């Protein structure tokens, strides 16, 4: 189903349908994450990927055209690059340990300590929250700062543009050809 959705997104020229299909893809991804027992990530995917970003993309569509322009060149070279990159990724995946294997490298470093002593040290039963907010507090602070920076960037870019536009609208409305 996800492959079908991705193919449809690539084939369609109507951007409204593409946005809706993108939302569908996010929901399918969230389902996969639930199956993998990553409920926190699934929740984020469903709310951000399927919810907020769909609304934002629809808002952008309202500002622009809703039909994708025809490509001016043949898509052979990009297709080749994508295939080679995908092939390399699959080849690299073959070297990964089995899914859920208990004694792979990443599960022997700090994970046992977090799992065994996390509850007694932090008193928080949800180990995801404990790692996110306590053990990896620096990382989460960085992520929050990234989000903050994104917000400030959007404010800086769009706010000034809008103020200029409204100012021009008031002054030069009649003078525009």
């Amino acid at each position, binding site marked *: 189903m996800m492959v079908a959705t991705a193919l449809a997104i690539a084939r369609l020229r109507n951007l409204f349908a593409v946005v809706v299909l993108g939302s569908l893809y996010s929901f399918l991804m969230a389902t996969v994450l639930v199956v993998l027992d990553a409920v926190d990530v699934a929740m*984020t995917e469903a709310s951000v990927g399927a919810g907020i970003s769909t609304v934002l993309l629809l808002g952008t569509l309202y500002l622009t055209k809703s039909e994708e322009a025809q490509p001016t060149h043949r898509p052979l070279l990009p297709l080749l690059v994508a295939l080679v990159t995908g092939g390399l990724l699959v080849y690299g995946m073959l070297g990964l340990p089995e899914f859920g294997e208990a004694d792979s490298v990443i599960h022997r470093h700090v994970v046992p300590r977090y799992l065994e002593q996390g509850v007694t*040290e932090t008193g928080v039963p949800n180990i995801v929250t404990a790692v996110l*907010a306590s053990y990896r507090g620096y990382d989460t*602070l960085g992520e*929050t700062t990234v989000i*903050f920076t994104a*917000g400030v960037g959007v*404010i800086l870019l769009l706010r000034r543009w809008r103020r200029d536009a409204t100012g021009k609208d008031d002054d030069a409305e009649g003078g525009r050809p």
Partner: protein
Amino acid sequence: MRSQVVLRVVAKLLIPFILVFALYVQFHGDYGPGGGFQAGVIIAAAVIFYALIFGLPTAKRLVPEWLVETMVALGVLIYAGVGVEGLLLGGNFLDYFVLSHNPVSGQHIGIFLVEVGVCITVSGVMLMIFYLFAGRKRGWHSER
């Protein structure tokens, strides 16, 4: 969309539950799935829903733009402030054990405050982006 009675009634029914669910996700994040990020997104989604149904000006009266701007910065300040608080109390940066006499309850306080900070920043940024995008007029090509 103001004239759609069904949409308005459904929105009025749903939005309180969405907000309560966001608070649940926020404060139950210690025990179940969820946390600050998800709660912030859900709060923002509730306000965006409100703005879609009742119009952007109404939503901006409810949640004014200056408040959203303040939220963007306030969340990061709360988060970093927890870290500095740990420093002042003699621990390391973002060390929650010193926040209370009991290390475990100190962890609780620290995680709680940090999640609140994340929630405030995330919902502020999401709302700000939506406000700025939705507040713009149509582009040049539609004026021709």
